[in-house]
């Protein structure tokens, strides 16, 4: 387990050594703060002490930011050759992938912790549904983890960071938007299946305060499949097509 943490620690440090982490934090807090307090359907407009608008904005900002964080994780290491350096130390492919995953998840957790003042402020204005806020944050974390694992997979199959970024967005947009749109135009089983595949429907029920094991299974499946596919993509160097 130790190698996972060592790799995650290094990666997290490198987020903060480059400007990336600060850009993410400022942009994320800026966007979500703007739409929670100042414009659109902000708190004063809806006249309700709720964080629904914050969760709505975070849903979209994280969707765009996460691929920007994950795009270099493996692609860059493959491109510069440092992958070889790490994997010839006593580190397995799995530990490497999990370390990278953990580093980005930690960064997202940090940025979510920094939004807690919103919650505290809102709670001082009026009665807040605390349960809904807790599950709301949980929903954001689960959704982020799912997109990180998708982004990690996109990063593991290419050495080009732009390709990795766009691919992560392309896969992501299906879960984020397209499946739920398609679900409306398909009746019966296909419609229900597409609806189940869309992150939207699961996220929504969680932020409303409904925590269903079905939703948890859904998120953990995406996370696992993404990580598994990344590990396989790394191990592919050893499979030769005869």
């Amino acid at each position, binding site marked *: 387990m*130790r*190698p996972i943490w*060592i*790799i995650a620690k*290094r990666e997290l*440090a*490198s987020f903060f*050594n*480059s400007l990336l982490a600060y850009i993410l934090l400022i942009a994320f807090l800026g966007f979500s703060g703007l739409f929670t307090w100042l414009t659109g359907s902000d708190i004063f407009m809806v006249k309700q002490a709720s964080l629904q608008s914050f969760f709505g904005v975070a849903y979209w900002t994280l969707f765009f930011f996460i691929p920007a964080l994950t795009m270099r994780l493996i692609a860059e290491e493959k491109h*510069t*050759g*440092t992958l*070889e*350096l*790490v*994997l*010839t*130390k*006593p*580190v*397995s492919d799995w530990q490497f992938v999990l370390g990278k995953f953990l580093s980005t998840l930690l960064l997202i957790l940090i940025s979510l912790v920094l939004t807690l003042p919103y919650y505290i402020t809102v709670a001082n204005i009026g009665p807040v549904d605390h349960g809904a806020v807790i599950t709301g944050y949980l929903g954001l974390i689960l959704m982020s983890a799912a997109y990180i694992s998708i982004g990690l997979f996109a990063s593991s199959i290419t050495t080009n960071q732009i390709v990795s970024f766009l691919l992560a967005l392309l896969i992501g947009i299906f879960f984020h938007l397209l499946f739920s749109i398609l679900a409306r135009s398909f009746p019966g089983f296909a419609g229900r299946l597409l609806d189940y595949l869309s992150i939207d429907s699961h996220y929504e029920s969680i932020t409303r305060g409904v925590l269903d094991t079905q939703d948890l299974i859904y998120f953990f499946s995406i996370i696992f499949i993404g990580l598994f596919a990344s590990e396989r993509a790394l191990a592919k*160097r*050893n499979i*030769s*097509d*005869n």
Partner: protein
Amino acid sequence: MDIIVQNVTKKFGTQKALDNVSFTVKTGEILGFLGPNGAGKTTTMKAITCFLMPNEGDIKVGGYSIRENPDEIKKNIGYMPENNPLYKDMPVIDYLSFVAELQNIPALKIKGRILDMVNICGLEGEKHKKIGELSKGYQQRVGLAQALIHDPKVLVLDEPTSGLDPNQIVEIRELIRQIGKEKTVILSSHILAEVEATCDRIVIINKGKVVADGTPAGLRKQAQGREILKVTIEGADANTVFKALQTLSNVHLVDFLSKSNNTFELQSKENTSSRRDVFKMCVDKGWFLTELTPTETKLEDVFRELTLK
């Protein structure tokens, strides 16, 4: 720890990068791994360091198989890959401490090990700089330092001196020779002089196959065969000398090297020497022997002969 490579075959698609490669490196030996570009040197090294798994065959490092105990092998190998990849945005010290942690060095000893490495590799003045800001020679030292930090018994270096200037090459070579006194070292290169200067034994590989395996002196001897002399004789017309040389009993072949200088290349018959005959002939005819140099077969020639087939 010794390294035993047994019948290793590695395919990329339909192409065989390694074709039934076998050789051994004894404990404490410095082995030079030679071959033209694309011969399979790097692939072999990647297989030894457990980055690539061969399709067939096995490699044992100190008795551990790459198929069964890759983690044991990884703990005992220091590896510097081709082109020396490093995290360019990390300061030297941070990077070395990252590698030390990955190599499971106890936390208390990490600081001491890093200082040792900084001393051995001459990084004192650069240890707080970012790796990307260092010159190529210093980056190479960082590459060596990260390979040595856990005091491995085996060292695998893939073209450790490529891209360095002549002074740096000498320094790095000296460093490797010093370190190599206690460790088993494999070093790949296509600079022959380097291998000859540093290594105890040489393996030459071409198109994925081992084509030669022996000491530098042994390989040279093997390719030597006939005596070859470079001769310059003054005092007569070049053609006259040419004809006279051809009549000598032990001479197999005469060739002009430079007609205007009267310089010739003589090849003697097998197991004979014509040095005395040439001198005697000059004395008899009253010519001046101004040059008589036996040409040694260089490692370059051995290399060319083996790899151009």
